[in-house]
């Protein structure tokens, strides 16, 4: 029998869509199902000639209202993938629907911030557009949580992201952030939005996470690359959505009626990084200094520069550090460099010489000397020890 010809209609320029497609691939690889897959070469879907598609089935991203409209007349099995709705009447009729649970994505981010000890919250959303109904669902979920828990909760939609309006959008975002009561926990509806928050905090001199703790959604490696401060992010169950969509389509191709199937997939984790590790610090000097060290600690900064940035004398800053962190500013900088180096070593993607330079140790011998002094081993032994403990 010839393999079924299946169209995957996604705009796979986002990590979420790519993970859904990866999940479909996992399902096909784990079974003996052979599908002849149709995807646009640039992984972007175009709906205008989908009615000409001579295939057996479709899995499509229904967050885009155009997709929903274009597929309505298709007589072959269609499985929809998209965001969940709090109002069940908003789901497309008579199409099986595999959803990411928007309410639980927000809930997971919120619970994480609560556990960090925060008591005030805000959501950074995006302006309402037909293709961003999922963002409105996340807003709705956020408003529901803060109302039910009787805590302060603000929503800011911000501006659309355009090249021309970018400067002004950033100004508005900085102003909004500056005007927020602090400390505060912020949830961004995507990592792309969270990245804008991080950047605006740097511009506005707002300490992350001491004044503003940030959680994004998507766990997008691209957003990580563009930040100095590693971003905490909720991981959607997108691969599981792909596996589920493939399974449902597989059953439909066998003749099962799945028109009323609706499966809502919860998030599968949260990648906890520095951006949300809020620790109530009493000294604003230490807060500002820590923020500066997190951004520039690996660029060879000295105590003087930190004190300059904070705007106090070196002696005053040292006193505050000793009282609150039980260490000197120099030790705090060294700790940041070492933590970063250890993470890179365990990541295994860079050479030791490269790591030495990137973490501000200037040379490989110096990195070795510091490791010998601090950990009583070489960087390589450190890696081996860590591997041994994780394997056992």
């Amino acid at each position, binding site marked *: 029998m010839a393999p079924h010809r299946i169209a995957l209609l996604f705009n796979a320029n986002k990590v979420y869509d790519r993970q859904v497609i990866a999940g479909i691939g996992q399902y096909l690889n784990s079974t003996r199902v052979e599908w002849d897959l149709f995807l646009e070469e640039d992984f972007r879907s175009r709906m205008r000639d989908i009615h000409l598609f001579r295939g057996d089935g479709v899995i499509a991203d229904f967050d885009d209202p155009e997709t929903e409209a274009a597929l309505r007349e298709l007589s072959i099995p269609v499985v929809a993938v998209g965001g969940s709705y709090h109002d069940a009447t908003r789901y497309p009729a008579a199409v099986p629907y595999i959803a990411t649970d928007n309410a639980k994505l927000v809930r997971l981010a919120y619970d994480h911030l609560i*556990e960090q000890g925060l008591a005030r919250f805000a959501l950074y959303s995006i302006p309402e557009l037909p293709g961003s109904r999922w963002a409105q669902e996340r807003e709705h979920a956020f408003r529901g949580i803060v109302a039910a828990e009787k805590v302060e909760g603000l929503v800011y939609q911000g501006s659309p992201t355009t090249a021309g309006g970018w400067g002004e959008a950033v100004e508005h975002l900085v102003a909004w952030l500056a005007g927020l009561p602090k400390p505060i926990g912020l949830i961004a509806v995507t990592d792309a939005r969270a990245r804008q928050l991080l950047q605006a905090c740097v511009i506005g001199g707002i300490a992350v996470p001491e004044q503003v703790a940030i959680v994004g959604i998507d766990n997008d490696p691209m957003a990580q690359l563009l930040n100095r401060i590693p971003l905490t992010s909720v991981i959607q169950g997108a691969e*599981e959505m792909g596996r*589920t969509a493939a*399974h*449902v389509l*597989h059953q439909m191709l066998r003749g099962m009626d799945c028109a009323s199937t609706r499966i*809502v*997939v919860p998030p*599968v*984790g949260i990648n906890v990084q520095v951006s949300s590790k809020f620790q109530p610090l009493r000294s604003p000097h230490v807060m500002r200094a820590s923020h500066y060290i997190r951004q520039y600690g690996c660029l060879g900064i000295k105590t003087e520069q930190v004190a300059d940035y904070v705007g106090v004398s070196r002696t005053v800053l040292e006193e505050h550090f000793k009282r609150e962190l039980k260490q000197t500013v120099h030790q705090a900088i060294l700790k940041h460099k070492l933590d970063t180096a250890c993470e890179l070593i365990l990541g295994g993607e860079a050479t030791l010489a490269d790591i030495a330079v990137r973490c501000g140790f200037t040379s490989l011998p110096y990195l070795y000397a510091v490791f010998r002094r601090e950990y009583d081993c070489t960087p390589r032994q450190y890696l081996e020890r860590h591997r041994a403990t994780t394997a056992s």
Partner: protein
Amino acid sequence: MPISEPTAWGQLPDGRPLHRWTLRNAAGARVDITDLGGTLLSWQAPDRQGSVGDVLLGHADAAAYLAATAYMGGIVGRWANRIRGGRFQLDGIGHKVDRNDGDNHLHGGHEGFHHRRWDVERDGEALLLRLASPEGDGGFPGDVRVQLRVALGDDGTLALAYEATADAPTPLNLTAHPYFNLNDRRDDIRDHVIRIDADEFLATDATAIPTGRQHVSGTAFDFREPAPIGSRLYWPDPQLRVAGGFDHCYVPRGAVGAAPRVVAVVAEPSSGRRLTVETDRPGLQFYSGQKLAGQLDRQGHPYGAFAGFALEAQAFPDVVNTDDAELGILRPGEVYRQLTRYRLDTL
């Protein structure tokens, strides 16, 4: 870490006193065990933030455990899981054992190991539990002696090492029956993300007796990649409808009887807690807790469905009525051995 002195923990209906012991580790975890059924009463473990919470379901007191029907936290024997019709042939002789699950035998019968008082003593860093099961217990032949060594390691591992001998051939299949909920603040385990390292599971009939091995590929039972438990319950799968959820024995990969291998990992996104299960047994029963509704919690309030899940290391259900029957039989001169470890850490 030293194990606590036993403290009084109620009594049996005949007046014999019951006790509770506490195991602690250097990481701040503690496990409470009672001599009633060797039951794991609670397991306090740190979450991602380091705050400690109970990851096990439990009842209020000894009377509640004796009245309940969910095998909550108990050590199950002589035969964990089911025997079809409560009947089997052994060396040409037919045997009838307790039928306490419809027509089938389940978890040792009317008075299983989980409702007995075990003899408990401290043995260095471990707790040693012993039980003598007389001939005819639940209808099974032979005198059986069981010893279970329980230890809590500093890495969060709760190790259960079983040994048993018999003076006549008898089926023997022991397991522990803790119900986990890794999020101590939520009453539902459906958002837990589970991985089970098994290519096959045992499909069952309507009475939960295995009908044969089935490959997990293309089914809701494929957890070789981690997936949330709850959304799988909605996959169109006749085996899920038979059991109202997951209540099936998996066939984990790896050699049986050698060193324990990892068979399952469960992570809970919100608390960041992760449970890893290792065992040397051939089977792993995954029960998603769909029938827990109405069981009473520690405050005496009813649990809801899916309040906890169980991962029970064991021989295959009803194996004594299959061609592999010998795998479920303990003979005089042999020693039954099982090593199962539950490890809790955080992501």
